[in-house]
């Protein structure tokens, strides 16, 4: 594929021609010695560099293009619909005060999680994300019961009630969290990828972050390290247009976030997050690159329908903006695809939906019936050695 990297190297070759600073790519091949390979002689003419970025627009791929059979398609539908139904209930349960603390809903972005999970080797590859983590958790197969119980702060919760909404983890499925400090999990993603490479596995790590997290130094340091060490990492910016109340273009001097890859000699692409096929296609191709030792960056344009958190009225939106985005809805899009291509009827899909609604109700029942953790658990999991004497 035409990637910014290759083109960058072309343009560098060309630079070299008019004897510009050489040495690009040297970081990739281990240098012969610890010394610099760079020239300090400055070329006379201006230096030009041209870059190309792949795009993955919506409505551009069929299910064959992403290697999904009909069962897989229905799985995708189930996955996205489950996320939405689950979170619709979360809102209600928060109002009922069964859920407390922060609650960040993912509604509108479901194609990103579902498409990405479809593209990887679930259970072998690794995933890490920020605090808006219900969607990816469910997409990866976390059980709705323990997930809801975590939101209720129950002992049966996926994190035993210790983490809550921002801290979904699943050791089995290799979801490494669920992290609350913006950008701070991106270096962790690089480290998870590092461990895969260190052990010689051909697994990758997907690291999701928000558009706002691009402005944390941690993101930049991690991307340079990932590129320098050729880590099997796909960094995925879920650009849902806002960081809390701050529009992406009020925070980023360069509003095309995919261009951040240029500083790290990394390929990057721009993807529609409103089409699960586009997401799957993009992540498949970039995960493959990662397996071959080439980290990359994806900017996904998507949209969150709800406020930043349950308490945010989101009055910063432009009038009509929300409806406008909703007209792009990824679930509706897949629904249309399934029916128009006679893969499923509306009735069949409604039946699945009803089933999912029931699953969510059962999850709530499970959470309600579960007990809060035993008080002694306050002191568990602070250290591997539980119940350290000095703690009390």
């Amino acid at each position, binding site marked *: 594929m035409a990637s910014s990297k290759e083109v960058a190297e072309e343009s560098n070759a060309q630079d070299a021609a008019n004897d510009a600073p050489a040495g690009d790519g040297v970081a990739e091949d281990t240098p012969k010695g610890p010394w610099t390979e760079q020239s300090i002689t400055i070329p006379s003419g201006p230096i030009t560099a041209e870059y190309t970025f792949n795009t993955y627009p919506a409505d551009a791929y069929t299910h064959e293009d992403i290697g999904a059979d009909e069962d897989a398609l229905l799985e995708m539908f189930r996955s996205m619909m489950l996320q939405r139904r689950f979170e619709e209930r979360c809102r209600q349960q928060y109002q009922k005060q069964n859920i407390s603390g922060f609650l960040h809903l993912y509604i509108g972005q479901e194609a990103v999680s579902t498409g990405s999970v479809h593209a990887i080797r679930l259970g072998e590859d690794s995933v890490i994300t920020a605090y808006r983590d219900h969607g990816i958790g469910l997409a990866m197969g976390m059980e709705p019961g323990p997930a809801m119980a975590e939101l209720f*702060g129950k002992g049966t919760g996926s994190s035993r009630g210790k983490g*809550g909404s921002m801290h979904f983890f699943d050791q089995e499925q290799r979801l490494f969290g669920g992290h609350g400090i913006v950008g701070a999990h991106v270096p962790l993603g690089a480290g998870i990828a590092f461990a895969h490479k260190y052990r010689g596995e051909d697994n990758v790590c997907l690291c999701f972050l928000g558009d706002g997290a691009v402005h944390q130094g941690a993101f930049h340091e991690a991307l340079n390290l990932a590129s320098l060490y050729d880590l099997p990492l796909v960094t995925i910016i879920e650009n849902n247009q806002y960081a809390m109340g*701050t529009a992406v273009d009020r925070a980023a001097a360069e509003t095309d976030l995919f261009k951040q890859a240029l500083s790290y000699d990394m390929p990057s692409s721009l993807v529609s997050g409103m089409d699960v096929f586009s997401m799957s296609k993009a992540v498949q191709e970039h995960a493959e690159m990662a397996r071959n030792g080439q980290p990359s960056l994806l900017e996904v344009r998507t949209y969150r329908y709800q406020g930043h958190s349950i308490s945010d009225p989101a009055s910063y939106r432009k009038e009509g903006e929300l409806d406008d985005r909703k007209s792009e809805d990824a679930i509706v899009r897949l629904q249309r695809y399934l029916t128009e291509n006679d893969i499923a009827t509306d009735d069949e899909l409604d039946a699945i939906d009803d089933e999912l609604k029931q699953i969510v109700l059962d999850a709530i029942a499970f959470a309600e019936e579960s007990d809060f953790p035993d008080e002694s658990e306050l002191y568990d999991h*602070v250290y591997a050695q539980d119940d350290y004497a000095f703690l009390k």
Partner: protein
Amino acid sequence: MAELQLREAIREAMSEEMRRDENVFLMGEEVAEYNGAYKVSKGMLDEFGPDRVIDTPISELGFAGLGIGAAMNGLRPIIEFMTWNFSFVAFDQVVNNAANIRYMSGGQFGTPIVFRGPNGAAGQLAATHSNSVEAIYANFPGLKVISVSNPDDAKGLLKSAVRDDDPVLFLESEQMYGLKGEVSDDEDYTLPIGKARVARTGGDVTIVAHNKSYWLAMDAAEQLAERGYEAEVIDPRTIKPLDIETIVESVVKTNRLVIVDESNPFTSFASEVSQQVQERAFDYLDAPVTRVTAADTPAPYAPNLYEAYMPSAEETVEACLSVLYADA
């Protein structure tokens, strides 16, 4: 006097100082268009405009440092951390730059800057969003640290902080932003940094408590009164420089000290007060200085664990009774 919420008192202090001195500006995440994540800066963009009330990207390290540089070059920035938890990504800027530049430059450059925001646990926000930072920052010479428990102190001390020529860390509380109290409306109302407030007098036991913990202490004092014990409650208000004299004076009278501090206990502010008091009032102490703090664990999410994690009025009463050698 007017009755204001804590958030309103803070806003009034900032607005008055910005009207008084055009070198004062407010910068932080969501402070302008959004009117503040907790509505502390509500309306300030309208009054002062986007050049003086400035939204930032999520770049604490960057804008904390930007503020320090601006202070070195003659301005008086107020930098809001949405919460103090997020100051940790800017930690180096605060402790190595803000704190040391006056000293390293032999007094050539000062850093008159205020860093402010809510501190401590604020409900079930889990481990990374419940840090209490006063002890950590107060360890660094060159910094001043204030932590307030009510609207009037907040206004008077924040105005002093803005006028102060040194970096001041001003700690508020998310859960107290709605707390109401009488506040002076004098445009020049300031309170001295480094002076504690004796909030309640009593001869039996001294309780030192700041920020939210102050209210636990007052509650405990009431309960003790019902049992016939009069507690003297002191709100240090300034963590550093600490008004140790006021505390020692009280302990000389009561011979007993309990410190309530919602931080994790190890190397906490409570430890420091304890050390200084026993060093200066050793012969007056009839019982060990005792602290009531959060558990020495990260903050859990589950409501019952969270309750067990946080210090309570009940634990404070128990601690007081134990130093009074009275049975609970």
